[in-house]
């Protein structure tokens, strides 16, 4: 009993850290109703540029896996990056290569287009890398700002 009481603050701290970690969703999503994939792709690329990121490339989800004519028309990937952030991130931790370059997946349905990105703050939680978390939270905010602007 005494041992448990001694360990209680540590256990409670771990518990609340765990709760805080669970708060980050794995994916960041925004749905854009009544617009085509091409339209959302265009506004997304404008939002990328206006937030000081560089558009890298755009491709179908199955690009180079099937002949060009057979590529999926309804799922597209848009890649982008910020070279200053890329350099700083790699100097901090080479694992950040796993979230490079930045990426949004566009999925077109009957009602509109879903924009989806992997949440970098969730990834750094999974790595148990508290030193990276403030930077990943900033990148998450950048993603959300870009998605918001693209959805306008």
């Amino acid at each position, binding site marked *: *009993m005494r*041992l*448990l009481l001694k*360990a209680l603050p540590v*256990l409670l701290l*771990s*518990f609340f850290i*765990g709760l805080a*970690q669970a708060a980050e969703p*794995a*994916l960041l999503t925004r749905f854009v109703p009544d617009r085509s994939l091409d339209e959302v792709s265009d506004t997304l690329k404008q939002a990328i540029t206006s937030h000081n990121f560089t558009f890298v490339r755009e*491709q179908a*989800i*199955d*690009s*180079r*896996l*099937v002949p060009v004519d057979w590529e*999926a028309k309804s*799922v597209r990937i848009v890649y982008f990056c910020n*070279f200053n952030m*890329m*350099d700083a991130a*790699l*100097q901090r931790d*080479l694992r950040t*290569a*796993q979230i*490079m*370059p930045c*990426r949004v*997946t566009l*999925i077109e349905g009957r009602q509109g287009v879903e924009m*989806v*990105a*992997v949440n970098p703050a969730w*990834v750094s939680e*999974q*790595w*148990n890398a508290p030193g990276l978390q403030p930077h990943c939270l900033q990148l998450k905010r950048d993603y959300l700002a870009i998605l918001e602007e693209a959805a306008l």
Partner: protein
Amino acid sequence: MKMPGTVLALIMLSAQVVAAPLSASRAGNMQTALDDLSTVLLNHGYTLVKVQPVDQALVKRGFADPGIRLAFVGKEEQVRQALASDPALLNLLPLRLTLEDDQGRVRISSDDLAMWRENLPSSVEVLQGWEDELAAILSDYAGQ
């Protein structure tokens, strides 16, 4: 009283366990590593979709060379699997490998797919299948 405390501590510790990505290393430089990797990928029915020369892109802009390149790899079947299992899996495709220049050797690491298994419980088998294939690819790369 000891037992619940121990169980609680174990549960909390297990939540903090960090899964490691798959990794393999062999002697060579970036170019030979990419050549070797391309051959191994073909043998496993994979396609090298794109190489992202992060090292060259950063050096060209005046930054230090991180000695990193990214290779995006995949199979058509994986897109079908993702659509059938959980569209969230599309965010992992094409699969990413990180090539790291390490003093005369090049280490190739996969993304950590294990961390997605908890998040996408309905896709555990699909993820495990992809992970097994990447493990075989990296094993062949190391043993070439």
